[in-house]
């Protein structure tokens, strides 16, 4: 097996284009996961009878089934049953976001429980409105504690985006596949794709570890 530098160099522009899509998927998916996770955590904690149980069942379902199946459900099953048709990219963002929201919800729950009881009592004693207790007192203390865990989920999500190849999202990996199909050389594009993942994941995980150490001092 030999390495063709020309082929490697030729494949880079297309791979970088794919990488942009991968990063977009990760950022938008994380945004959905971060926001929806708070909603899930608050709904579960709020204990509204039926809604809370439905969210619980939904979270358990998502956590117990593979992401790929969820992607297929969204992409192939949803349009004929509901008439909602989404592009592969939008499907990918929603699938990743909802999937990871079911994990971040648990992270937020733990973060909220870590806020001392005295903070709730002080907020009650001062008659702060319920919404303000959350936005002014509890979440500002819970969120910094959970940032490292959220960061780790974003890194996992980044590494799972190639799965969306299955519904035709043109990310790094599918770009590598395209280069391979065109040039009949697969070694260079797949190797470079792997290196691109490494170049982003590794520094990101170092940043998260730093963050963990800082949060540990809180």
């Amino acid at each position, binding site marked *: 097996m030999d390495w063709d530098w020309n082929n490697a160099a030729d494949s880079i522009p297309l791979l970088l284009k794919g990488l942009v899509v991968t990063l977009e998927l990760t950022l938008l998916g994380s945004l959905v996961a971060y926001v929806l996770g708070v909603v899930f955590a608050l709904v579960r904690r709020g204990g509204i009878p039926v809604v809370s149980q439905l969210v619980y069942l939904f979270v358990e379902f998502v956590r117990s089934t593979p992401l790929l199946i969820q992607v297929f459900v969204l992409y192939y099953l949803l349009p004929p049953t509901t008439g909602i048709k989404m592009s592969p990219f939008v499907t990918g963002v929603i699938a990743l976001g909802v999937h990871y929201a079911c994990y971040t919800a648990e992270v937020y729950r733990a973060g909220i429980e870590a806020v*001392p009881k*005295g*903070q709730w*009592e*002080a*907020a*009650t*004693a*001062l*008659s*702060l*409105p319920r919404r*303000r207790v959350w936005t*002014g*007192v509890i979440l*500002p*203390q819970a969120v910094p504690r959970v940032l490292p865990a959220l960061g780790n989920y974003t890194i996992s999500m980044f590494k799972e985006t190639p799965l969306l190849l299955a519904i035709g999202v043109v990310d790094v990996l599918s770009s590598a596949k395209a280069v391979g199909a065109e040039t009949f050389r697969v070694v260079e594009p797949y190797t470079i794709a792997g290196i691109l993942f490494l170049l982003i994941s590794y520094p990101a995980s170092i940043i998260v570890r730093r963050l963990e150490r800082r949060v540990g001092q809180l």
Partner: protein
Amino acid sequence: MIRFDRVVKSYGDHVVLRELDFTVAPGEFVTLIGPSGSGKTTILRLLMTLEKIDSGTIQVGGEYLSHRERGGKLVPADEKYLRGIRRRIGMVFQQFNLFPNMKVLQNITEAPIRSLGLSKGEAEARAVDLLEMVGLSEKADAHPTQLSGGQQQRVAIARALAMRPDVLLLDEVTSALDPELVAGVLAVLKQIAATTDITILCVTHEMQFARDVSDRVIMFDQGQVVEEGTPERLFTEPSQPRTQEFLKAVIQRA
């Protein structure tokens, strides 16, 4: 100002308050003493609505605390009603419980703005006055974590007073402090007792302080009033054996 009527409170099988009756007059400074587990802190927590009463009623300023009258009958109060009546009561906690994500000034202005609807300017003017009163004017922009325990507790006192409550509850406010920081906090409380007409209910182990500032001292044991009286009377010639034992133990320790 405060009226407990046959108040019962238990945690599981453990009965903390047994049909407790007592009243506090407007502007009175009342200190609750008694062995740990006698229900003193529970009384304050019930008044602050941090705990639910099992039976009986509590009134504050003539209004029911955990109940409301509807068609001549008493029904349990809802959250909205509780929020209204809570504004008349302030509490200072053993562990200060300042909001660590807010600076000192915001800790004090937060509730007047969000709960009473004061403008930012009004709330800040109030906070500046209060910080001056507790001797921490220069700490307005500090974070609570940068303050000593005694300073944090003085901010917590200012925070409670910023709501201009009718009743102030002091729950062992010096118990978590290093000994050298206690005097500063007590001095602030003495000043409040002397210069305001706020009704104060205080749980403390600082007997000298209780003696100096209280209008009345109530001795509790096992969820009931053992005896009560002026501090001079109760500390010098307690009539009940349980009070005598308790005071002896406390004085020996000090």
